[in-house]
């Protein structure tokens, strides 16, 4: 049996709690549904973007392998020793249903974003230029991928948490409150009935004392 005091005060308290829980459950459920909707949209973007980036990276890698095959590794090392370009990222956050997701914007050090060749063209193979070029084209997509993928991960975590809360409210808290409320109501009703009966009994006894109905009933009719 539940361990609650069957009192009116406890009943009022539980009713308030139940109302809050029900309201919270509804809100969290809405949150979960909306998060899920946005997550599914985002994850589809994530999937196509990733497939694209992976494909293009593989093509770029092929170019790099080609470049490596015609140049000594020292020459490659020298070519990339002093990069001209430098990229920094600004991180803004966007709030989606209480999940903070990052928004990246890049800044390049030199004003021309295409200023990527950190070497003279004399001693390097043209494959290397192609390779670097293909990577540079990919850079925006890769950053977008980072943004989207991180957002997906964060939202997935939040959805999982919200779903747990919804389930806990729906299957544990709310039924528990309802059970307790029912128990207290029954108990109070029971008490009321027994008080009623006791009063009736007492009234009976008092009337009996006064008027002696029983004796009168048992008395033989004389006339």
């Amino acid at each position, binding site marked *: 049996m539940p361990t609650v005091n069957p009192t009116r005060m406890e009943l009022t308290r539980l009713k308030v709690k139940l109302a809050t829980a029900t309201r919270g459950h509804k809100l969290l459920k809405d949150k979960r549904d909306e998060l*899920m909707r946005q997550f599914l949209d985002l994850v*589809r973007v994530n999937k196509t973007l990733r497939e694209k980036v992976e494909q293009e990276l593989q093509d770029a890698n092929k170019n790099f392998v080609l470049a490596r095959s015609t140049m000594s590794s020292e020459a490659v090392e020298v070519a*990339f020793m002093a*990069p001209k370009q430098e990229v*920094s990222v600004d991180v803004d956050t966007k709030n989606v249903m209480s999940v*903070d997701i*990052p928004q990246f914007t890049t*800044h390049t050090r030199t004003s021309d974003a295409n200023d990527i060749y950190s070497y003279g063209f004399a001693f390097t193979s043209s494959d290397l230029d192609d390779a670097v070029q293909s990577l540079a084209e990919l850079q925006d997509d890769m950053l977008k991928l980072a943004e989207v*993928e991180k957002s997906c991960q964060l939202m*997935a975590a939040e959805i999982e948490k919200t779903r747990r809360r919804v389930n806990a409210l729906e299957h544990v808290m709310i039924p528990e409150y309802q059970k307790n409320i029912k128990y207290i109501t029954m108990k109070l009703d029971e008490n009321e009935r027994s008080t009623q009966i006791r009063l009736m009994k007492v009234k009976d006894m008092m009337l009996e004392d006064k008027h002696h109905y029983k004796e009168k009933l048992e008395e033989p009719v004389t006339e």
Partner: protein
Amino acid sequence: MYKIAVMGDKDSIYGFAALGLDTFPFTDPVAAGRKMRELAENNYAVIYITEALADKLTAEIDHYREQMLPAIILIPGVSGNTGKGIQSVKKSVEQAVGSDIIFNN
């Protein structure tokens, strides 16, 4: 101001240096894991890591999964695509939905 890092074996990542990303060539997972923690604490917003290296650093990567920064993104290296990257997207879906409803074809 945040920066972008690239980790992995040298052949897969050296080209990124030309774009102005910071490259950290590693093949030893222990040293790479240490470096990753260091980068995460030092204003790196995005860390690209090759799938081959990420394979040995699953614990570290999962640790940063639910933090806003850094975003650790798997990329295929020269050794080819192992499918680990798409696997991590799959994992998000499974975590959120309970079962995989995007990739089940």
